[in-house]
Each structure stands twice: as structure tokens, then as C-alpha cells.
């Protein structure tokens, strides 16, 4: 992607590196967030990359599993909460 409009690629990569650097959150915490998001967007490359990154940065399998459950809870929860929309329509149309 950097072969055309290389400056955009460079800007993105600089930003990407800055996002994952140690800050108010540690690199381990950011890797766990990335791992959860990777499962939400179901990106197999991201899952591989952030499984490895999480291990390298000191996370263990319990923590990584919890992160995936957080992703799952948000996804499942958001489906459930959209049930309100279903209920509203059904209530409006029903007797």
C-alpha cells in the first residue's frame, strides 16, 4: 500500500507506532485491547499478530482469554440491546 501515495502510508505507520507505544496504558494493556478488537473485526492476521505481541509483552493465556470474552460480551451485548429496536417496532405494530 505504500507504493502509491507513500506519504500517507508513512503517516499511518508513524501514527500506528505512536498509538502502541508505552503511555498512560502499558504496551501489554494496548496489546490486549488490540487482541480483543482483532476478534471483533475477525481479522486473522491481527489475531496472529496480537496473540504473539500479547505474549511477548507479558500477558498470559488467562488474560488473553478474558480479553476475547470482553470483545464477545460487547458484541453479544450490542445485539441484545438492539432488541429494544425490535421491541419498539413490534409494540408499535402489534395489538
Amino acid at each position: 500500500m505504500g507504493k502509491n501515495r507513500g506519504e500517507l502510508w508513512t503517516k499511518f505507520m508513524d501514527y500506528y507506532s505512536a498509538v502502541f507505544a508505552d503511555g498512560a496504558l502499558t504496551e501489554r494493556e494496548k496489546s490486549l485491547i488490540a487482541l480483543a478488537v482483532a476478534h471483533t473485526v475477525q481479522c486473522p492476521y491481527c489475531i496472529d499478530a496480537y496473540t504473539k505481541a500479547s505474549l511477548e509483552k507479558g500477558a498470559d493465556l488467562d488474560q488473553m482469554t478474558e480479553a476475547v470474552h470482553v470483545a464477545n460480551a460487547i458484541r453479544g451485548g450490542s445485539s441484545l440491546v438492539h432488541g429494544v429496536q425490535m421491541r419498539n417496532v413490534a409494540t408499535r405494530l402489534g395489538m
Partner: protein
Amino acid sequence: MPSLLSIRHPLASTAEQHAMLERLAVPEFDHTLERHGLARLETLPIEVLQINVGKLCNQTCAHCHVDAGPDRTESMTRDTAERVIEALRRHPIPKLDITGGAPELNPSFRYLVEEARALGRHVIDRCNLTVLLIRSQADLAEFLARHRVEIVASLPSFRSAGTNAQRGDGVFEKSIEALRRLNALGYGREPGLSLSLVHNPVGAFLPGNQASLERDYRRELMSRHGVAFNNLYTMTNMPISRFLEFLERSGNLERYLDLLVASFNPGAVAGVMCRTHLSIGWDGTLYDCDFNQMLDLPVGNGGPRTLGDLLAWGTDLRRTIVTARHCYGCTAGAGSSCGGTVAD
């Protein structure tokens, strides 16, 4: 878990370990230095005399490059320990770094500490923490504090699962108890009582950013266990002995060696510890580092080869370092040494 030697595993033989590493398509370390325009490794003035007093240990860790354990009997004698002190007397090396095995289980450990401190040298004890809880070592922590010995202790994770997976069931809980005991004596809290922790990856990957991991360790150990410490050192697992056996058994050998080679950092070369260390084995043989010691690669290239040579040697300890394929472990990523990373 028994040692590789006790189950007569082929990898208990250093010749077999060398053969396994040489079968891989890994370039020779010195060729890689040359390809990056770097000279072969030469020593700087020696700052640390590191002695491995033996392979006896109360633990049998899964990654141990020494293949140490309760079933090992190799141990430095009092006579050799006295010659180590004599060598310190003759050579102005500022630090004595004592490792093992569990070095405290050697009968000459306290003699070495007392004599080295009397010579005004800084002493480091590479401690597995659980040894402090052994009944026969009940006064060990007080002894170390009294002599202002720096403690460098292994704790691969601030959580139980990772630590116990690498070091054995229940080791994390005992380690926390030992750390609390050290904190109560002032370790990790008072000047002159330095307590550092060592993080090794719990698997076939490189360690993460040392400073970031230190923040995690500091916050988690204090908030969950009330434990304080001074520094965290990250160390790369070396493809030697039990970690080599793990790599082979788990199908990770080739990938891990490729990772070490691909992560070669020319900026880490200048700071590798062998340039400022001299390592002595339990039997008085000299090595460039503890890893070379475990691979039976003694000092060559013009340096003293035994403790006897060292006693007769002048003050010039310069030599060219003996290298092999395991050396990529110290130059991968941010580099790795007994004092943690060596480059950005």
C-alpha cells in the same frame, strides 16, 4: 521434573546440543558480524567476575540453560572457592556475580560473600527466591542483607500461571512470600539493598519492552501483593539445554532460531555482557560467559583458561570472545544480558 542428565536425554550432551544447532540453516555468528561491518567480539576491561558454583538447585525450571536441579551434584569445592577469592585479590574486578543452580546451596557460598565483601567488592546473588524458604536457609535473607548483597531474582511473570508454568507448581506463591520477607528487611526499599527481578518469556518468543514490563510488574506486584523492587531485567531464553529441548519437543526450534537471527540488532553487539565478564565454572574452568560455560566452550583466543592460569596471569585479561550460534540470543531485539537489555 527431572534434569535432562538424570533421564539420560541425548540433549544432556553438549556435543548433541551443538550438533542440533549446527544442523539448522543458521549463519555463523561471526559471519553475521562481518556482514554488518562489525569486528569479532573483543573484551573490554573486566567489570564482573561471574562464578557458577554448581548445578544443584531446589527447582527444575523448564527453560534452565544449566540443566540444574535437586539431582545434580556438580559443586564448587572450598579449595576452588578460596582460589576464586585469591583471583579477586590479584585482579581489580569490581563485581562478583554468584550464580548456579541455586548458588546459596553451595557450602562455600557464604565464605565467598564474606571474603568478597571484605575485599570491598560488590556482590550479586542470582537467587531463585524459593531457596530463602528452605528450612536450612532460614537465616539466608538476613545474611544477604547484612552483607549488602545485591539480589537478582527470577520472576518470569507477575502472575501465578506464567511463573509456575516455567518454574514449577507453587513457585509463584513461594516467590511472593520470599519477596515480602526481603522487602521487610529493606530490600527493594532502602539504598544499598538492591532487589531486581528477571523476566524470561514463558515460551518461544522474545521478551517485550523492558521499561513497559517494569511498569506492569511494579503496579501489579504492589497492588496485589504489596511487593516492591528496584529494577526489572528482561532476558531472552537461550537455545541451550532444557530450553533447547523444549524448542525441539514443541516443534518451535527452527522458527525460534530464525526469529533470533531475523531480530539480530547490530546496535546490541557493543553491549553484550561477555565483553565485560569473565565466567568461572564450578571446577575452575574459565569461560567468556555462563552460556558458553553450559555449552563447554572455554575461553580461547589468548586468554587464561583455568583459575590456575588466572592466578598466574598479569592484569591484561583481553581476549577474543568464543562465539557460536547461541550468541544470537544476546543480540536479538533490544539485546539481552544478565543486566537486562543492552540497546534501545
